[in-house]
């Protein structure tokens, strides 16, 4: 028998990184005895090592809890844990669409940040009931009054009676459970209507294939049903449905209002796209749930094995990674400098970093990555349009009529004293000022229109250093805009190094060319001959540096009988050499290719 719908509460937790979302989730599971005390560990919903280490959530997960409220009734609480980063905005929006309410966690020592605000807006867009909660009140620096003030002024939510908690110590966390029961509406939906299940995430399981994580909005789904994915049109037979406790536990059926998973022997997560609607093939819904979008990669880079022999291993690793993350795209490419590898696309910079880290850790690969690029729109003289995600593939300027680059709306929240410095930064990144508003006395929101290619490099670091870490940042994608872009190339001892080519705005090409050449001069070790490093636009050299030839590479002294020391030095030198790439005659250390990123 289905659980009474009026006793179900589906909710998410919204918080800025480090404001205590995962700790609160842990505490809620503990209080509801969802997880036995002895199985308790930190960040229990974040199962990936990277999530725990970085203290972030990358994948959405869910957990079902049972809670006996003060009214004496037992409620089923489904917590959907969502990623917090701007790269995953779409995933967050779908996870929120699966809920009726959200707990907004605000750090009593920090107040509201841009990402929190962005997610609150997403929650409001999805008509969610929002319960503000002030966290970390056990800290000496806690200023709950200010946090309340900010929630009321910036978001416009009454927060006078917001629970003031410490997720760390457990103080007042029970109040949060009570508020979830009293404030968040029960799900609506008819268990007998045609099935509409919203996919908010998916996971690849080695034994069961791709699992859809769903919120059933209407109808009922059982094992044996033939289901249809309304956007992709593909159909499968359900082998199992279940819930999260937080481990997967099969159940007989999932009905309207419930959260769980559907297994249907699906080969890849690419088939079960976030935001798609699952219905029954025999009795389909008339239309899918709204809000579906194809998540498109925004940031591209080349990924190569540090050791060319690992190409097949990298391919297999990417195949497997994509089974679990359909938003990554990849296709083979070759580089003269780096050999065989892949052009990979990601939702954003964090997504890219995480994927690289997972490839290196989970698949034990040593990788070389090139500087990230966005997709440029190139309008050719003949009027045809080409989308270019790899600077090396940019057609000759002779054939190009004009070029366009993707823009974003960047929202920055900062204490007013840093506004000047941040505006300088935005200007420097070719930002166009749109708006500045005082959200309250000590919180300013700046809005700029900026090229995406300027923020994928070091914008975030710059923002943090100019604001002593106080500014936060969020962006949404805008349109393509015409821009005076050029391809900047680098030559080492006369040989062009394709992996270093980058597309930049003409006004910045000289400075960038000089800076990268200088950086390369630092990172390329001296070799037996002199190496000229040149930066060039088209055929024109705009900067030159020289790596002087090394004269001697010999250990003068052999330390008496201590042979091991000499051997260790050689080993180290040999390892360093293995990480070198050959560009023409020049050996280049692998990380030089990323050094283009790390210039100011």
């Amino acid at each position, binding site marked *: 028998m289905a659980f009474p719908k009026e006793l179900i509460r589906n909710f998410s937790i919204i918080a800025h990184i480090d404001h205590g979302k995962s700790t609160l989730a842990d505490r809620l599971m503990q209080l509801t005895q969802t997880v036995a005390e002895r199985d308790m560990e930190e960040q229990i919903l974040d199962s990936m090592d990277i999530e725990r280490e970085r203290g972030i959530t990358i994948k959405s997960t869910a957990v079902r809890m049972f809670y006996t409220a003060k009214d004496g009734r037992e409620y089923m609480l489904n917590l959907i844990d969502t990623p917090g980063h701007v790269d995953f905005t779409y995933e967050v929006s779908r996870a929120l669409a699966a809920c009726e309410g959200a707990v907004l966690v605000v750090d009593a020592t920090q107040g509201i940040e841009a990402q929190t605000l962005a997610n609150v807006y997403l929650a409001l867009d999805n008509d969610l009931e929002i319960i503000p909660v002030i966290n970390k009140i056990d800290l000496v620096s806690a200023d709950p009054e200010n946090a309340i003030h900010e929630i009321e002024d910036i978001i416009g939510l009454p927060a006078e009676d917001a629970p003031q908690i410490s997720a760390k110590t457990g103080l007042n966390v029970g109040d949060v459970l009570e508020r979830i029961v009293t404030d968040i509406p029960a799900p609506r939906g008819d268990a007998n209507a045609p099935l509409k299940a919203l996919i908010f995430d998916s996971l690849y399981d080695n034994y069961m294939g791709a699992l859809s994580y769903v919120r059933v909005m209407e109808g009922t789904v059982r094992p044996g049903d033939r289901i249809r994915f309304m956007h992709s049109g593909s159909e499968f037979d359900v082998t199992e449905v279940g819930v999260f406790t937080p481990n997967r536990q099969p159940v007989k059926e999932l009905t309207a209002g419930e959260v769980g998973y559907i297994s249907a022997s699906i080969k890849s997560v690419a088939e079960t796209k976030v935001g798609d609607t699952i219905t029954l093939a025999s009795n389909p819904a008339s239309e899918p749930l709204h809000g579906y979008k194809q998540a498109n990669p925004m940031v591209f880079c080349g990924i190569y094995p540090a050791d060319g022999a690992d190409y097949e291993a990298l391919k297999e690793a990417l195949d497997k990674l994509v089974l679990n993350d359909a938003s990554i795209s990849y296709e083979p490419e070759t580089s003269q400098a780096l050999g065989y590898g892949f052009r990979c696309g990601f939702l954003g910079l964090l997504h890219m970093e995480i994927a690289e880290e997972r490839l290196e850790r989970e698949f034990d690969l040593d990788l070389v990555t090139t500087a990230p690029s966005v997709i440029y729109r190139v309008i050719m003289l003949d009027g045809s349009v080409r989308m270019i995600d790899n600077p090396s593939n940019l057609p000759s300027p002779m054939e190009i009529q004009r070029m366009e680059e993707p823009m974003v709306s960047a929202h920055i929240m900062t204490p007013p004293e840093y506004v000047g410095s941040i505006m300088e930064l935005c200007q420097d990144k070719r930002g166009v000022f749109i708006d500045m508003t005082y959200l309250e006395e000590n919180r300013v929101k700046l809005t700029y229109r900026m090229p995406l290619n300027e923020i994928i490099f070091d914008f975030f670091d710059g923002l943090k250093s100019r604001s002593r870490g106080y500014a936060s940042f969020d962006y949404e994608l805008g349109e393509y805009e015409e821009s005076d872009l050029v391809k900047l190339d680098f030559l080492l001892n006369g040989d062009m190094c394709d992996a270093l080519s980058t597309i930049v705005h003409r006004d910045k090409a000289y400075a960038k060319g000089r800076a990268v050449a200088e950086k390369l001069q630092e990172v390329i070790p001296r070799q*037996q001959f002199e190496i000229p490093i040149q930066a060039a636009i088209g055929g024109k050299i705009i900067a030159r540096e020289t790596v*002087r030839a*090394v*004269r*001697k*590479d*010999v*250990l*003068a*002294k*052999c330390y*008496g*009988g*201590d*042979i*091991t020391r*000499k*051997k260790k*030095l*050689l*080993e180290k*030198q*040999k390892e360093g*050499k293995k990480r070198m790439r050959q560009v023409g005659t020049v050996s280049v250390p692998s990380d030089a290719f990323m050094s283009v990123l790390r210039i100011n």
Partner: protein
Amino acid sequence: MAGLYIHIPFCKRKCRYCDFISFPDFAHEDLYFVALISEMRKYAPLMRGRAFDTVFFGGGTPTALKPGRIAALLDEVRKCFDISPDAEITCEANPESATEEKLRELYSAGVNRLSIGLQSASDAELSAIGRIHTREDFLRAAEAARKAGFTNINADVMHGLPGQTQESYIGSLRLVSELDLTHISSYALILEEGTPLFDDVNAGRVTLPDPDDTADMEDAGFEFLAQKGYARYEISNFAKPGFACRHNLNYWDNGEYLGLGLNSHSALRLKGDWTRFRNTDRLDEYINELGEGKLPVRETRKIERDEEMFESVMLGLRKIEGISRAGFARRFGVDPVEHYAPAVTELELDGMLEVTEESMFLTKHGLDFQNEALIKFMEQ
């Protein structure tokens, strides 16, 4: 034939570039002396049947020990080990502590080779690297050595020192050649992490010569030595005919040696296995363990044949004459040129290595880039 090394880990003051194990006080000299004697006695039965044809007292500053100590140690060495009658017995000396009296004592005890740590004949350079002696001290020590009877004398000279120029470096070499010493070790300064000089350089308090200038200095200095009749026989070593250091040659031939004293290293063939080990580098452990009748040995490693071969290449190619193909074949049953064919061919093409019927050796260019040459052998 094997070598015997005895480490004396005491100095009046530690030099700013030095990362050897040595203590700037002599508080534990007596205890250390007793421990050394115990160590020799422990090894005596194990070394039976091995003839030692070189003995080397290194440091530290062996000449700074109390009078009679080196003689007493050498006495014990002869009791415990089979020392060849014509053995080369070297003792390191620092100019300030090498008095005629002390040197006479060494000589009459049987030391027949003296190695003086000159490093530089410029007082400014000496003080920059924290040496406590002067040019004058060195002149006095060299004269005292002659008077004491030494005919086989080495001087260590360094290049790449703070404030050093090509002229001053050659000036140091000239001084040694004018005194007609038989041997010169001319090392480039290696900046070792953890030394005061390393910290000074990193903090910008001290500037070393540009590496290119040091390379020029070295080329000019080595050229000068050749003109003066000192033949280069190893990367950093030069000798008048017949005066190459046999103790060090044994290292470069990858021969057997036993190291006694703190943090000294040993390489011995034990029950057929090529074995390396070292002593503890902690003075308290060294003294206590020997006091308890234990050998303070650490990191004993059996060296596999491939590694032993590479060691022979790594060490042998330090010598100007290179590696004897027949000698290598006797030891390993393969011709090194054949065994390392790809590396040898590549290095020959690069002009770094030459091969004859008898030997393979590095060219001048190969010697300058010895590390790169060795990595080729290593990679194979």
